[in-house]
C-alpha cells in the first residue's frame, strides 16, 4: 500500500460520528500523517475559516448538517471553494444537489456508501491539483484583464457589424466622461462630432473588411462634455464574445498638436523676420553706401551735396523704422513663447 508522506491539513465538517470515524480510517490508509480538524456544525467551520483562512489544504463537507439547509450549503461551499478546494460527502438521496454543487465550483462529491480509502485519497489529490491549476489560470486571466482595464491609455472593443462598444477600460471612462454602462449602450458614432462620422464609417469599412492589423490614424472625437479632441487611433481585429470586433487604443494628441501648431506659427514669424532682414533692412543700408560713394568719388556742387544729405537722412530714418518693426515682431514671438 502506497503511503503519501506529505502533510495534508484537512477540515472535516461531519455531524455523524460514525461517518467521521470512517473517513478518518480511510485517510490514514494512504496518508502518513493527516492533520485533521473535525467540527460538527457548519457555523464552526465558517468561523474557523474566517479566522484562519490559510490553515487548510482541503475541506471534506457533509451535505446534511443540522444547522444549514442544503441549498444554502451549496452556495456557501461555492464561496469557500474560491480559495480552498471543497469535497462534498453525501448519500444517494442528495445526488442531485451534489451534481449541482459541482457546476457551482465544488471540486468533487463522494457518495458515502461507495467511498473507499483509495477513492478518497485520489479525490483529495485531484482536488488539490485542479485547484492549483484553476488558481493560476485565474491569476493569469486577472493579469491580462488588468492590462486592459488598468492601462493608462483609453482602450475599447467595438463590434464591427453594429459599431457597439463591447468593453471599455477605466482610462476610457475617465477620459471621455462616460460610465462603462453608458459606453455599453452607445456606438462609436456617439463619441464623434457629426462631420467626422462619414470618415469614421469609411475607415471602419476598409480596415474591418481587410482585417488590417495595426491600423493607425488621427481622428477627432467628442467627449461627453462636448469637448472635441484629436486622437491617434491604433486598432487590431479581435474575436470578442464570438463576434468580429476591433480593439482600439486612443491616445489624446490634442495638446501635442496644439504645441506643434504653435511651433509652426513661431517658425513662420522667425522666417518672416529673416526675410525682412535680407530684403528690407539691407535696402536703406545699400542706399546709404551708394550715396556716400557718390559724394566721395564724384564731383558734386553744393546743391547736389545737400540733396544727397537729405537722402542720407531719409534712408537713416527708414532704417530706424524697419528696426523698430523687427523689434516689435520679435517681441510677439517672445510673448507667444511665454504663454
Amino acid at each position, binding site marked *: 500500500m502506497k503511503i503519501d508522506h506529505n502533510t495534508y491539513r484537512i477540515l472535516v465538517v461531519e455531524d455523524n460520528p460514525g461517518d467521521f470515524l470512517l473517513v478518518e480510517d480511510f485517510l490514514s490508509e494512504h496518508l502518513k500523517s493527516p492533520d485533521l480538524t473535525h467540527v460538527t456544525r457548519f457555523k464552526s467551520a465558517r468561523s474557523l475559516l474566517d479566522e484562519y483562512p490559510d490553515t487548510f489544504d482541503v475541506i471534506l463537507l457533509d451535505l446534511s448538517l443540522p444547522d444549514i439547509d442544503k441549498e444554502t450549503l451549496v452556495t456557501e461551499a461555492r464561496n469557500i471553494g474560491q480559495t480552498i478546494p471543497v469535497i462534498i460527502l453525501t448519500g444517494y438521496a442528495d445526488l442531485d444537489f451534489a451534481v449541482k454543487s459541482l457546476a457551482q465550483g465544488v471540486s468533487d462529491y463522494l457518495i458515502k456508501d461507495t467511498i473507499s480509502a483509495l477513492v478518497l485519497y485520489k479525490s483529495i489529490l485531484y482536488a488539490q491539483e485542479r485547484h492549483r491549476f484553476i488558481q493560476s489560470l485565474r491569476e493569469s486571466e486577472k493579469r491580462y484583464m488588468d492590462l486592459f482595464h488598468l492601462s493608462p491609455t483609453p482602450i475599447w472593443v467595438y463590434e464591427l457589424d453594429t459599431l457597439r462598444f463591447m468593453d471599455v477600460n477605466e482610462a476610457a471612462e475617465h477620459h471621455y466622461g462616460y460610465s462603462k454602462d453608458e459606453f455599453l449602450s452607445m456606438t462609436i458614432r456617439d463619441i464623434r462630432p457629426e462631420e467626422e462620422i462619414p470618415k469614421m464609417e469609411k475607415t471602419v469599412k476598409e480596415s474591418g473588411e481587410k482585417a488590417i492589423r495595426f491600423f493607425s490614424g488621427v481622428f477627432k472625437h467628442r467627449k461627453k462634455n462636448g469637448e472635441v479632441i484629436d486622437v491617434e487611433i491604433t486598432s487590431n481585429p479581435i474575436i470578442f464574445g464570438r463576434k468580429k470586433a476591433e480593439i482600439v487604443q486612443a491616445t489624446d494628441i490634442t495638446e501635442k498638436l496644439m504645441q506643434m501648431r504653435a511651433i509652426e506659427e513661431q517658425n513662420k514669424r522667425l522666417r518672416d523676420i529673416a*526675410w525682412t532682414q*535680407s*530684403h*528690407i533692412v*539691407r*535696402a536703406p*543700408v*545699400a*542706399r546709404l*553706401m*551708394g*550715396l556716400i*560713394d*557718390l559724394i566721395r*568719388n*564724384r564731383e558734386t556742387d553744393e546743391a547736389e551735396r545737400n540733396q544727397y544729405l537729405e*537722402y542720407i537722412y*531719409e*534712408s537713416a530714418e527708414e532704417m530706424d523704422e524697419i528696426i523698430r518693426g523687427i523689434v516689435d515682431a520679435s517681441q510677439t514671438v517672445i510673448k507667444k513663447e511665454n504663454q
Partner: protein
Amino acid sequence: MSIQTMIVDDDPIFAMMFKKIIARESFFNSPKEFGNGLLASEHLKSTYDPSTSYIIFLDINMPVMNGWEFLAAISEFAYPKNTLVFIVTSSINQADLVRSKENEYVIKFLTKPILSNTIIELKKSIKERLAD
C-alpha cells in the same frame, strides 16, 4: 546695333544714383526707368525689337510685379540672346542668388550698393557677350 538700357526698381533714390553712375558711360545711353515689373514688361512687350539689345537692371523686391514675375512675363516674347538681365538687389539671401542662376535671362546677380568701378567691369562683360 542699338542698345536700350532699362532700370526696373521701386526705389527712386537708387534709380537716381544708378543713373548718375552710368551717366559717364555713353554706352548706357538714356536709360528708361520703371517703378515695378509690370510697367517694364508692358513697355518691353510693346516696343520689343529682336535686333535691339536690351540691358535690364532688375530689382527683385517690388510692389505690383516683382522681379521674378517680370522674368516670367517677358519669357513669353523676349529672346535671352538680346535681353540681358542684371539682378540688382539689396538682398543677400542665398535662395535669391541660386534662383537667379537658374534663369536664362539673368547674366549676373549684383548686390547693392552698385559702386562706380562695378560699372566699368559690367560694361566689359556686356560687350563681350554682345560680340558673341
